[in-house]
């Protein structure tokens, strides 16, 4: 294909669309359409009948119900927000710190990296059993009790549970579990972030460090003057990822899922999800607006 008569800008545009098209088609059909459908559900009363389901348009009353008369939606939502506010900066700082450590040369560092990625691998067992798979079955078979089992042994992996079970004194454990569960929560949620930072650290050109070394810079200076600015776009990426990730796996999300698949109130669940979505969007927008001003792009 040739674009002889086109300006550079037009050429760019056509090539851009050309490259993006396969993904876009998939995205539109498999993601955007369900999204819009879910918005429609949130404005309706969805009733399952013999021949599928019927939608009755009832306006905003699902939203009103979630906000004004649901017993715990608002409380859970604010709880989630607070939790994310505390955890997100900690996770990002923690994962950057460990990514830098794990990027150094030492024996067995691949093994060390694998260990820090473990929580992600271990978690997939539980998540897989919670996620889409079992949900639809529970609708079809009208929630037979057995499906909840999943990979039950994985649940016992929670370190706090193990500590309590191994018979330490109760007051000590209570104090410890409070602190430990947060630390553990933070570490176990930073597997992907560490990996992203590592990839970022590896794309920094070694010649920059070489030059800095020749000029007599110290490791400390090299970190703040080279590593930090070069990795700053990924700090933004990881902030966004962490916020989204913690939103998806927290209490409110669980409540949304339970509303849909245990009390079968799909309309209310969709309404909850959309409000939740709006809140995340605002949080993300504010975060990105603040952080992206500090981000450095090499040009």
């Amino acid at each position, binding site marked *: 294909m040739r674009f002889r008569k086109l300006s550079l800008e037009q050429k760019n545009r056509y090539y*851009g669309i050309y490259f993006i098209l396969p993904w876009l088609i998939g995205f539109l059909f498999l993601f955007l359409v369900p999204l819009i459908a879910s918005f429609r559900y949130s404005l309706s009363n969805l009733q399952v009948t013999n021949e599928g389901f019927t939608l009755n348009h009832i306006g905003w009353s699902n939203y009103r119900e979630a906000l004004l008369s649901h017993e715990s939606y608002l409380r859970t939502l604010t709880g989630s927000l607070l939790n994310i506010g505390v955890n997100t900066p900690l996770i990002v700082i923690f994962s950057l710190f460990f990514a830098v450590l794990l990027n150094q040369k030492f024996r067995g560092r691949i093994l060390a990296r694998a260990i*820090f990625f473990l929580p992600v691998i*271990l978690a997939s067992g539980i998540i897989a059993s919670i996620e889409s798979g079992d949900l639809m079955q529970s609708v079809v078979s009208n929630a037979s009790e057995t499906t909840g089992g999943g990979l039950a042994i994985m649940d016992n992996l929670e370190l706090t549970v193990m500590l309590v079970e191994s018979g330490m004194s109760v007051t000590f454990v209570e104090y410890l579990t409070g602190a430990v569960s947060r630390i553990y929560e933070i570490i176990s949620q930073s597997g992907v972030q560490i990996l992203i930072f590592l990839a970022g650290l*590896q794309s920094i050109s070694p010649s920059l460090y070489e030059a800095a070394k020749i000029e007599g810079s*110290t490791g400390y200076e090299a970190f703040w003057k080279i590593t930090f600015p070069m990795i700053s776009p990924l700090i933004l990426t990881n902030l966004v990822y962490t916020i989204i990730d913690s939103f998806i796996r927290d209490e409110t999300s669980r409540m949304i899922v339970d509303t849909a698949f245990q009390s079968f109130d799909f309309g209310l669940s969709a309404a909850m999800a959309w409000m939740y979505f709006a809140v995340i969007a605002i949080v993300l927008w504010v975060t990105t607006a603040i952080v992206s001003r500090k981000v450095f792009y090499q040009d």
Partner: protein
Amino acid sequence: MKLTLRLGKRLNRSWQVDAMLMLLLGVFGAFMAIPLIYVINNAFKPLDELFIFPPKLFVRNPTFENFGDLLQVMKGSWVPFSRYIFNTFFITAAGTAGHILLASAAAYPLAKHKFRGHKVLFTIIVLSLMFSPHVTAIPNYMIMSSIGWIDSYKALIIPAFAFPLGLYLMKQFMEQIPDALLEAAKIDGASEYRIFWQIVMPLVKPAWLTLLILMMQMLWGADGGSFIYSEQLKTMHFAMGQIIQGGIARAGAGAAVAVVVMIVPIVTFLLSQSSVIQTMASSGMKD
């Protein structure tokens, strides 16, 4: 100046600080490794040890009984067990490869071409990242059903192509490639395809290897429950889940399952991370 130099030296070179950092790494590493050690030890525990309360971390009388039990259960399955394994491998490989390919291809113009509307498109992508997959579960099923993809591999593989996460990651990484590099290639007469394959993709190798780990990990754990009904098409994860649900009688086999299911993601991780290191030198650019 001298002060910072000394400070820097202390932070950089002294072995005490190095040792401290390594210790920190070791402590946290041990912290993270405990669940893994627990799972592996569980797999080798004889039945009576599995039910000790409080649970013991290490096994006393290691045995391969559990793996034997697992094999026995696998042999007795209705569909040959190798079929489940093939299903999982096929879905994982096809989904991961397709996702990386499409996501990188789409990320390239978003990061480097700045055509009109790219900002709107990117905003939509970030917004869609935020939406919990549970919410779209029902509409997703309706679409699959209306295009007749229910009960086929497609229902699991094709949606994996369109996940926004990979696109987002790739775009962020590609943005860091200096424009000068691409311009130089263009001036030398390289086509867009060639720039994409020979310059952009090698430069972001750490990024797509990361994506490979993430996607592979996700698809490996897929059980396909809502989309797949025929026994021949079900995944290994699903079959393993069935084994575990055998309850107390299958506790031993269940413990073995946990180890078997974990092996492949861990091996992929180790392999891809070790090849990241090899690319390090070549991904350095001379500006």
